[in-house]
């Protein structure tokens, strides 16, 4: 049973506390989730398949009732009309009446939403579907259905957009277009909660990222924060001697060996000093370069079972 919360802090459009969804005793789809989405940001909701992203989104729009916990979306409980009127959502695969045209599908939704039907051609144009709008939606490609799903989400000119894997089925050009489109929506002042398992997508579009694993947020921050500080990578022989020498230097926090490389936690400005030290000691240095962990590295570390824990 969900407890209704008081309004969230002003800058939080979405706020959940200990939000949990269980299916029977064995399956915990979402586990005490704490999610905070700030007004005006694109929040990337990143997680592997089955991590609980879609169940979370379904709870936020009232399609699924939480087992326990609290949630507020635009100051209203999930699924409340007051909130839904200001939310545009595309959850999982976009679903439409196959025998209706794209335009008629949107007309149906506009009537149910109490939105003027003049919005229909406008949103079709926004997503680039005007020329195919009179065709039956069953004849649409996956990418076109995704666009129609986004058009449906935009019908109410919403303050908050919740998009679940919006680039599914799009070709690379379409994906890039969709990313630009999402970014432009956010630049127009909307808040976007973007769920995806595609790191590149999240990395390029999001202001902040939450990584979900087994139904719980395991890391949250900007992309830069998640990737962490840059370090140095050194390939040198003999490696053990190189590691000893580097480890003895001031400012070096840690030296670890991986795949024949030394990973050094240190300010990258120290590269020249490290190189000099090694060369003077007769160690052969074949590579030295600065490297930041990719979001993919962070993601894999956070989402594999024996990977990382909290951020």
């Amino acid at each position, binding site marked *: 049973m969900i407890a209704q919360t008081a309004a969230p802090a002003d800058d939080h459009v979405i706020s959940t506390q200990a939000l949990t969804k269980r299916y029977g005793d064995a399956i915990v789809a979402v586990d005490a989730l704490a999610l905070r989405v700030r007004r005006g940001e694109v929040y990337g909701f990143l997680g592997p398949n089955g991590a609980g992203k879609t169940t979370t989104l*379904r709870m936020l*729009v*009232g*399609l*699924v*009732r939480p087992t326990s916990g609290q949630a507020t979306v635009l100051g209203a409980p999930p*699924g409340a*009309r007051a909130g*839904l*009127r200001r*939310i545009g*959502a595309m*959850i*999982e*695969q*976009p*679903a*439409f*009446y*196959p*025998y*209706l045209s794209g335009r*008629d599908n949107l*007309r*149906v*939704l506009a*009537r*149910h*939403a*109490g939105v003027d039907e003049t919005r229909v051609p406008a949103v079709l144009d926004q997503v680039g579907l005007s020329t195919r709008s009179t065709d039956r939606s069953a004849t649409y490609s996956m990418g076109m259905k995704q666009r129609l799903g986004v058009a*449906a989400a935009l*019908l*109410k000119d919403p303050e908050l957009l919740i998009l679940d894997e919006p680039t599914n089925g799009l070709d690379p050009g379409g994906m890039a277009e969709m990313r630009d489109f999402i970014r432009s929506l956010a630049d127009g002042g909307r808040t976007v909660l973007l769920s995806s398992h595609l790191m590149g997508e999240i990395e390029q579009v999001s202001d902040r990222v939450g990584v979900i694993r087994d139904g719980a947020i395991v890391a949250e921050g900007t992309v830069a924060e998640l990737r962490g500080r840059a370090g140095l990578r050194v390939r040198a022989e003999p490696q053990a001697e190189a590691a000893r020498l580097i480890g003895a230097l001031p400012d070096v926090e840690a030296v670890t060996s991986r795949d024949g490389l030394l990973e050094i936690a240190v300010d990258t400005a120290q590269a020249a000093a490290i190189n000099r030290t090694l060369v003077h000691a007769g160690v052969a240095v074949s590579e030295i370069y600065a490297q930041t962990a990719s979001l993919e590295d962070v993601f894999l570390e956070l989402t594999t079972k024996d990977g990382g824990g909290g951020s």
Partner: protein
Amino acid sequence: MRSNVSAELLILRKRAATWILLGIWTFLGVFAAYVIPYALDPQDAPLGLVELLPESVAGNLVSGFPFFGGVFALILGVFALGSEYGWDTLKTLFVQGPSRGSVFAAKLVALGLVLVAFVLLPFAGGAAASVVIAQIEDAAIDWPSAWLLARAMGAGWLILAAWAALGVLLGVMTRGTSLAIGLGILYALVVEGLLSAFAESVSFLEPLTQVFLRANGYSIATALGAPAAGIESNGPGSFGGPFVDSVQALVVLVAFVLAFAALAAFLLRRRDVA
């Protein structure tokens, strides 16, 4: 609510299945009520040739509603809700902001309006067939009173509404169409049909059969002039009685509509849309 209903009417109006069901039901209804009896021998009809003439159009046509029309209405009801699960469109509707209750109410109202066509068209077709027969037989074209026609059409609508509501409930319960239609037809044919057939010889079944859609539908039909003898030989939709009081039948059918709709609404509101 008005815009919700107009949205649902758009969904039903543009769906080919709606028109196909309407066309087949109209054709079969007229065919079974007029073409076949006339082709065989009009004098073999329970009331003779008069049963096929315009003056008997109310009772003759409404006798096809409790079973044959009911099955079409059941399928229409299943489609109205069950298909939404199959296409996953409920989530698309619900995230737009209308309450689940208002979507459901709009679907019921739209379904009720479409059922008006499922009454008017067979009546129009039946009336036309009866005029043709009267002209062939050189019989007088006397129409029943407008009040009787209105009551017959109203009764026909109520009978179809009860079956459609059962279809809606089955569609919601099974979250789909195939199983719902299967269960509905199984209920109409096996549960109601067989138990009603055995009711005469198995006394404890009789009170049970009196609450069936079939018994109450046919009871209204006979009150409007449908010949009981014809209903008894109505193939898989036959019913040999006992018939109940027409007011009681009316109340039972209304109660069924309300109960089926309330249960379906409860399930729709309570369950997750996953």
